[in-house]
């Protein structure tokens, strides 16, 4: 367990705010600090087997998916990297476009802040497809922090933060190649090259190409099981490190993605093209010799253009975004640390839309500017208290007309208490705020024939409070300490945009929680995690979660009135359990991974209760989806500088039947011209059993 604790320290450094960049981001500076003796004395060895584990050092309840964890499965992209996590559930937005979505604490991934080395990413238009745009093999690790995190990265993380650490410029790997192919013809190619150019400069070039090329319709519903897709992306990241401690990081990324799905031979097609460009720069300036006072600047700009056809609808949104964070950090007094900062985010969106006469959203500019402060009190290893306050002004313009949301104060608190070494108790809570993008956040509505009933204007500011805690116990069992962790988190919205599929037949009604006289929306999420190594090189993790999610929904077919009924949030799985077993032979020449998950049921939309299969049998007679298991296995054989892996996904071959809903034609397929056509009611796997094979080649730097 000591090993886990120590890598936790390393990764905690990566999680810490950019204000600590100068002092903390040493873990990836291997090449530059070859002869250092002081920098990482605490960061000691970890089992390379360690896949997913809970960080003991982190102030927040943080699950870490390490590089080894990212090799346990095919993990072609970020979405698939969460398959063996119970904290995060992965699903599809709909059955035709390939857009993926995650859930954390029982809420949609739009309420989870995605960070790329502590820069907010996948915001707004980039959210629906963003999870598929990060190749798993580009990443070094992923950290999933639950609850209201630090105010330093902004307030858009309501249920938590997921931070991605990419391969570093300072990695001593001039060449890394990964190629894999799946039985459904999906092929992936990833390249990474980290180069050190003298003592101060280093860079990493990341390349990716993937696609699937064969039309398949295993369930004979007339629709492609998976859209034909082609993605290619290229990134280049740089690090400059001056002898006086100044660090500059900057990078560029470009991506192009196309996806063609829909009916095999019928008229309803989805045809989506995405272009994404990003540039960023981070500068850390030490203000004294030991870097205990420093300044940091983080600037990020991105552009995203989507051209989409969904059956008879076209949607061609564009988004330009800018993010700026200025931080001053003072750690001169050992027990008392301070961070002060200024921050700003600006998004400009245009959303040309053609859909059944629905007016297109107005071009809009969304701005947030504010100041924040955070105070941290440390009492040795026993107690940490972090109190943060964000004071923000929110302003939005629609076709130049101001409709600001005004000034908002958002406090956040974190407490970590370790009375003895074997027990860690954590609590955190605070407010989160985000501009909603109702059509983008619910992009699955385009994969339906339904009318859109819009009862909001602009981009309402969603507002929620999340509180929760965690207790982790460590005890001797087997080779190292085992851990048992218990979590509870509650998120309560005071403002939310609700996409109600049940209010009217053949329509999706959008309305605001605050417009209801008795509106409530909350989730209670419970989770238990157990991890041990019963014998050497055999690791076992077992996790289970239960989610109670409820939302006030307006009654069926009642147009007037604001009194709703508190109901179980539809299409939200109540429970999930995951078992992962990994065994490695001596010197890790063979690695065997086995992952099994049991996915609980969810309440289906009311209109789904009447849906029948081609024989006229009700699909959901009790109004709930079935509980289903998933199995994954992988075998890896490692050689010097390269490894091959073979695996299987969804070995139980469970798939969601009748994923396309509506009135059936004589041949059993759904009539897509009718308003009750709906391909967005996805709760289970769309693809059955899949096999894959891949190779990873690493060329190490030598002298």
């Amino acid at each position: 367990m000591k090993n886990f604790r120590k890598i936790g320290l390393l990764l905690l450094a990566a999680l810490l705010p950019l204000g600590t960049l100068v002092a903390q981001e040493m873990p990836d500076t291997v090449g530059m600090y070859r002869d250092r003796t002081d920098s990482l004395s605490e960061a000691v060895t970890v089992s390379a087997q360690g896949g997913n584990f809970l960080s003991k050092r982190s102030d927040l309840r943080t699950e870490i998916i390490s590089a080894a964890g990212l090799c346990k499965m095919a993990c072609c992209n970020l979405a698939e990297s969460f398959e063996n996590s119970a904290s995060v559930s992965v699903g599809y937005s709909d059955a035709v476009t390939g857009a993926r979505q995650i859930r954390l604490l029982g809420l949609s991934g739009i309420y989870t802040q995605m960070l790329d080395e502590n820069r907010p990413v996948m915001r707004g238009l980039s959210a629906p497809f963003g999870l598929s745009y990060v190749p798993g093999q580009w990443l070094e690790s992923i950290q999933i922090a639950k609850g209201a995190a630090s105010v330093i990265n902004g307030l858009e993380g309501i249920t938590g933060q997921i931070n991605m650490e990419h391969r570093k410029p300072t990695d001593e790997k001039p060449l890394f190649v990964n190629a894999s192919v799946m039985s459904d013809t999906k092929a992936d190619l990833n390249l990474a090259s980290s180069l050190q150019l003298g003592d101060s400069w280093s860079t990493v070039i990341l390349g990716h190409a993937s696609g699937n090329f064969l039309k398949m319709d295993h369930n004979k519903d007339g629709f492609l099981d998976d859209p034909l897709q082609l993605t290619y992306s290229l990134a280049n990241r740089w690090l400059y490190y001056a002898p006086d401690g100044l660090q500059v990081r900057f990078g560029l990324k470009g991506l192009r993605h196309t996806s063609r799905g829909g009916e095999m031979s019928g008229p309803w097609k989805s045809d989506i093209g995405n272009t994404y460009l990003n540039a960023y720069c981070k500068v850390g300036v030490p203000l004294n010799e030991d870097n205990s006072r420093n300044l940091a600047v983080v600037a990020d700009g991105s552009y995203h253009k989507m051209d989409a056809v969904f059956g008879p609808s076209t949607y061609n949104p564009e988004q330009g975004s800018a993010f700026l964070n200025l931080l001053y950090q003072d750690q001169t007094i050992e027990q008392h640390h301070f961070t002060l900062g200024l921050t700003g985010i600006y998004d400009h969106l245009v959303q040309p839309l053609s859909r059944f006469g629905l007016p297109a959203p107005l071009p809009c500019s969304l701005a947030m500017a504010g100041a924040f402060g955070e105070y941290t009190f440390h009492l040795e290893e026993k107690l940490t208290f972090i109190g943060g306050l964000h004071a923000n002004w929110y302003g939005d313009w629609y076709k130049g007309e101001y409709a600001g949301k005004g000034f908002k104060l958002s406090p956040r608190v974190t407490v970590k208490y370790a009375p003895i070494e074997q027990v860690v108790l954590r609590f955190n809570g605070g407010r989160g705020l985000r501009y909603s993008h109702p059509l983008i956040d619910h992009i699955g509505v385009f994969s339906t024939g339904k009318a859109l009933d819009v009862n909001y204007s602009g981009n309402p500011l969603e507002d929620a409070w999340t509180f929760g805690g965690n207790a982790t116990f460590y005890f001797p069992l087997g080779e190292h300490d085992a851990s048992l962790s218990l979590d509870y988190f509650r998120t309560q919205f005071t403002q939310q945009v609700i996409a109600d599929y049940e209010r009217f037949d053949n329509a999706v009604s959008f309305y605001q929680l605050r417009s209801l006289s008795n509106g409530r929306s909350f989730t209670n999420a419970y989770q238990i995690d157990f991890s041990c190594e019963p014998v050497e090189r055999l690791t076992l993790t077992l996790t289970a979660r239960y989610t109670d999610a409820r939302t006030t929904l307006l009654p069926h077919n009642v147009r007037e009135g604001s009194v709703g009924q508190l109901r179980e949030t539809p299409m939200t799985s109540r429970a999930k359990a995951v078992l992962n077993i990994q065994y490695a032979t001596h010197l890790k020449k063979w690695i065997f991974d086995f992952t099994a998950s049991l996915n609980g049921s969810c309440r289906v939309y009311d209109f789904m209760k009447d849906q029948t299969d081609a024989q006229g049998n009700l699909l959901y007679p009790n109004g709930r989806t079935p509980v289903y298991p998933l199995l994954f296995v992988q075998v890896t054989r490692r050689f010097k500088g390269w490894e091959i892996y073979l695996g299987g996904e969804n070995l139980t071959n469970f798939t969601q039947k009748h994923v396309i809903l509506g009135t059936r034609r004589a041949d059993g397929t759904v009539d897509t011209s009718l308003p009750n056509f709906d391909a967005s009611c996805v709760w289970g796997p769309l693809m059955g059993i899949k096999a894959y094979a891949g190779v990873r080649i690493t060329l190490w730097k030598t002298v």
Partner: protein
Amino acid sequence: MKTLLLTLALLAAFTDVTFLTNVHCQKCVEKLEENLAFEKGVKDLKVNLKDKTVYVRYDSTKTNVEKLRKVINKLGYSAEIKK
């Protein structure tokens, strides 16, 4: 019995050595582990970042201390035999 004798004979051919090195981070550990584990004759390996040591059990009929030291040096690290 034959198997036991064979095992004992093999063990007798195995030799242990511990090198003091200048590893300083987890990535150094990874680099040494990934490369040394697949060197001919290496039977066991432990890289300890805290003590900055590399312990190797090797088959002396297939490799020797000097070869192992050269491998570590080639990876960019110093390697002195710990007495």
